[in-house]
């Protein structure tokens, strides 16, 4: 018990307190000026916008994948099921490297997509693609147990009462799945906001265009502008905490449904 607390404070709390202390040394006006430069605002917009789109894509396709994996049997199902965790196990640097080469003009997918005007590498679209990749496991893995435990009898009852398959899905299944989908969405969103490794490779990191907030922190550090970096970090931290709170509320909601 004592060891747990000492180790926890040494590894997590003290570094954390250091950052907060450093931020408190700034006056409010200075903090505001450093955290809301035009370049920073553009970076926030891209970070949050791309994370939102990627999390939405994951909510949609993650639900589809989870549904197919739980409900149907088809050749290769177990392999796909095991592969869903791949983005979680693959180092983000490798993910960014391989995605950027896939979508580059001479890559496997890029050679077909680039002539169509879809540029996946070194664009904002690339950021969305990388974030979708890293967030993929979250929705699938949150949804799978819920789908598995879903009572077939409720669907049978709906069918007996004359509801078509679509109506059963919209009226009976979807409301039960909603809390889990939202939890997965929030988890993917939270992960996407902090993501750094994969984006560095695929985005090209052009200021005002394809530069994300964590990358701007690294830029500030390379200019030895510690206070500027700390101000940006505090903004990101506050956002992560708000999301963490939202996720806890959502999980409480989901478990109430599960009971």
């Amino acid at each position, binding site marked *: 018990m004592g060891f747990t607390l000492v180790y926890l404070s040494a590894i997590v709390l003290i570094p954390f307190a250091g950052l907060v202390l450093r931020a408190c040394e700034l006056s409010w006006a200075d903090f505001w000026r450093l955290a809301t430069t035009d370049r920073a605002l553009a970076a926030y917009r891209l970070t949050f916008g791309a994370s939102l789109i990627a999390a939405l894509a994951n909510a949609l396709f993650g639900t589809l994948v989870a549904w197919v994996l739980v409900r149907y049997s088809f050749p290769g199902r177990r392999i796909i099921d095991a592969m869903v965790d791949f983005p979680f196990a693959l180092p983000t640097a490798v993910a960014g490297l391989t995605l950027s080469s896939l979508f580059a003009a001479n890559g496997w997918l890029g050679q077909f997509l680039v002539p169509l005007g879809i540029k996946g590498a070194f664009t904002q679209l690339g950021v969305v693609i990388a974030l979708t990749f890293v967030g993929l496991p979250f929705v699938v893995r949150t949804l799978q147990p819920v789908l598995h435990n879903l009572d077939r009898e409720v669907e049978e009852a709906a069918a007996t009462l004359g509801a078509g398959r679509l109506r059963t899905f919209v009226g009976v299944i979807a409301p039960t799945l909603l809390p889990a989908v939202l939890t997965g969405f929030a988890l993917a969103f939270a992960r996407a906001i902090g993501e750094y490794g994969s984006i560095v*490779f695929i985005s090209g990191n052009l200021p005002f265009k394809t530069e994300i907030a964590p990358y701007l922190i690294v830029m500030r550090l390379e200019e030895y502008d*510690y206070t500027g970096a700390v101000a940006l970090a505090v903004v990101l931290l506050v956002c992560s905490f708000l999301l963490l709170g939202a996720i806890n509320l959502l999980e409480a909601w989901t478990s109430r449904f599960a009971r």
Partner: protein
Amino acid sequence: MAGTLRKNWRGHREASQRGTEEPPLIKWLLIGAALSFCVVFLLLPLANVFAQALAKGWAFYWKSLAHPDSRAAIRLTLTVAAISVPLNVVFGLAAAWAIAKFQFRGKSLLITLIDLPFSVSPVVAGLMFLVLFGLQGYLGEWLQDHNLRVIFALPGIVLATVFITFPFVARELIPVMEATGTEQEQAALTLGASGWQTFWHVTLPSVKWGLLYGIILCNARAMGEFGAVSVVSGHITGQTDTMPLRVEKLYNEYNAAGAFAVASLLALLALFTLAIKTFLEWRQSREFARARTAGRG
């Protein structure tokens, strides 16, 4: 006769399933959509790593891996994992034990704090250690006076990795330990076993699969961490470059095949992690099924 019987039986089955199953066309459309999404986002990126790594042939592949700087990066990554994983295993065991087997105030706060590194951006995590130990940091001058290097050296990389991989083992162990309860330990203690004996012979064996699961996840993340390590490492070639940082450096030097060669090792690590994970899950479900049939009999 048999033919009509079978036909009837089939007709009956279709009718009974129509209510809770989609028409075959929609079903296969859904499977097709899900499969193509998985192929584009999971299989193609994986296949691409190995295809690009071998694009210039096996000779070039081996040469890239045998390069002294790459070898130094592999060695550093293994060293960092060898230090930080055991640290977090010991902590994970202690924390999960304290949380699962005892009741105390502030328990949920402790769980939230353990989860904290999950929700912090890796770059911000690295920055925290820079603020503490960097030259402009709180302890920076003291460290310099005593000729100790933390940032841009091994200790900083280990600290950042430990921070990032902090929750994995504890997170996996808490539910397992809570599920096993305290009765067996109490029985062991009543029979005269010491605290340590109880831990080694009762607690540890009951959580070994959960522990292994936590260790492989923790190890995969420790070896692959990029953001936090990149902030504290200083990118000194051959000295403080871990494998992911080496990948970035080769990529920036326009040596794509070399970058992919090092990346392929990390991808193999990910596949290995997935294989063990799948095996453990399969084992767990088999044990669960056996326990259920035993309970029924």
